[in-house]
């Protein structure tokens, strides 16, 4: 057994141990006696639970609120305070500078169709040719007639020589529009079952997406779990917002702005590639 195999096994056993350290699955070494008591309580909500931006719709509501507050009757100043509260506490000088520029540029402007300009980067745990690795895929929130869903629009490159993609499309399957709130928890099962129905039509010409589809069909890529979600919101006024969920007992938590860009070139490459195809 090689040095790296031993290291891997040690790391794996530590990780699986940590997994079981969940509230319901804690492995206690001496677990013979039943508990003396299981107490249940019902308490009023804590302040952070009420102010947390639980859902992206909460974030957008606050973002688009341009009314003045009692403490600050001037609409622009009130808006600027509210926008600052939407940022995660970052102190990296570049981000602080971009944040200031963004707040000044926004003024009292609102997001007109924010749901239609929402993109997601999902980090998946995958098994590629039997080796566990991570793969980032990109999705766009789409509206077809009155119905909403997420569709795959891009992928990191996979070193697989692909076959032509399948023709069969099952229109009854879709990635639910609230999937981002659950960290795209159902995505691996859906993509593994049949990836083709979840690919946006405009993305089918992108080589990386074709390779993603063919490698799933050929069984070379097995999608295990979705691990992390980052959202990108195109404000349509020259700025892109990067959103992430922050979970702490703080007045400002939930979906918050992690970074802002005023150049599409700063977006992840697969998203830029899709936007170029989409605009043609």
């Amino acid at each position: 057994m090689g040095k790296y195999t031993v290291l891997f096994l040690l790391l794996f056993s530590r990780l699986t141990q940590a997994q079981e350290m969940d509230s319901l699955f804690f492995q206690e070494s001496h677990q013979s006696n039943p508990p003396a008591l299981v107490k249940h309580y019902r308490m009023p909500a804590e302040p952070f639970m009420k102010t947390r931006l639980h859902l992206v719709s909460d974030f957008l509501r606050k973002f688009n609120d341009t009314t003045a507050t009692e403490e600050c009757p001037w609409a622009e100043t009130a808006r600027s305070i509210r926008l600052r509260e939407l940022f995660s506490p970052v102190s990296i000088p570049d981000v602080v500078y971009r944040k200031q520029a963004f707040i000044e540029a926004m003024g009292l402007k609102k997001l007109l169709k924010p749901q239609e300009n929402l993109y997601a980067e999902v980090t998946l745990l995958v098994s590629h040719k039997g080796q566990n690795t991570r793969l980032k895929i990109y999705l766009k929130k789409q509206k077809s007639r009155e119905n909403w869903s997420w569709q795959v629009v891009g992928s990191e490159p996979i070193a697989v020589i692909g076959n032509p993609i399948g023709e069969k499309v099952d229109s009854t399957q879709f990635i639910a529009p609230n999937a981002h709130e659950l960290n795209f928890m159902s995505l691996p099962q859906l993509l593994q079952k049949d990836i083709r129905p979840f690919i946006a039509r405009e993305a089918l010409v992108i080589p990386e997406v074709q390779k993603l589809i063919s490698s799933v069909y050929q069984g070379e890529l097995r999608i295990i779990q979705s691990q992390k979600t980052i959202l990108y919101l195109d404000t349509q006024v020259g700025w892109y917002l990067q959103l992430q969920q922050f979970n702490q007992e703080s007045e400002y938590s939930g979906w918050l702005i992690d970074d802002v860009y005023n150049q599409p070139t700063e977006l992840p490459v697969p998203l830029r590639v899709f936007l170029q195809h989409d605009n043609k």
Partner: protein
Amino acid sequence: MKNYALLLFSLLLLPLSSQAQKTPVSKNLVVKDDTLSGEKLRDFQTLTQQKVTEFQQYLSIISDPTQSDEVRELAIENAQLLFLPDARMQVGMVKKQTLVKEYPLSIYLRRLKNLEKKYFEVAITFYDLAMVGDWEKTQAGYVTTATYFQHFKGKGKDGRIAYEDKTIKQLDVDLRNRKDPFYEEHRWTVLLGNVRVTEVEPKKSAL
């Protein structure tokens, strides 16, 4: 004459009654049975809140060793009726570990029943807050997300806290016109779906 008066009276009432029901219609005045009015959707939001609270009550019963085995088994059965058949529950996400594990809901509830074998003393706190987001239309009906919080404390034999966490539970909620197994007809029903679990980091001290 009396019949004519009745007919006229009914015709006069007709626009009022149809307005009260607010049946969604398209621009071409075609009734759309795959959509619900705003009023109905708000009712289903309230119903979802009630279902989340009901689920929390079942969790309390299932994990309570002072309840009889029959009552706890019945609570497991009833809790599952609130959910889609293939619903899964996440566990893990503990102490900055990014790995999570998912269990089918039925297995999660069974393991919850065995909680008494893991700890010497347990305290579970639920909060008076079940947030339900706005419904979003899909090709199958509507979806939204519900959120609730839970604080867990498990003590060992020595009385020390062996494990503690505060978690955010986010539930997928599925509203669609499905066949009701009891009434044998299609009706709009809300079912809960997958549950995501995220741990809340304690507030950092200012010092």
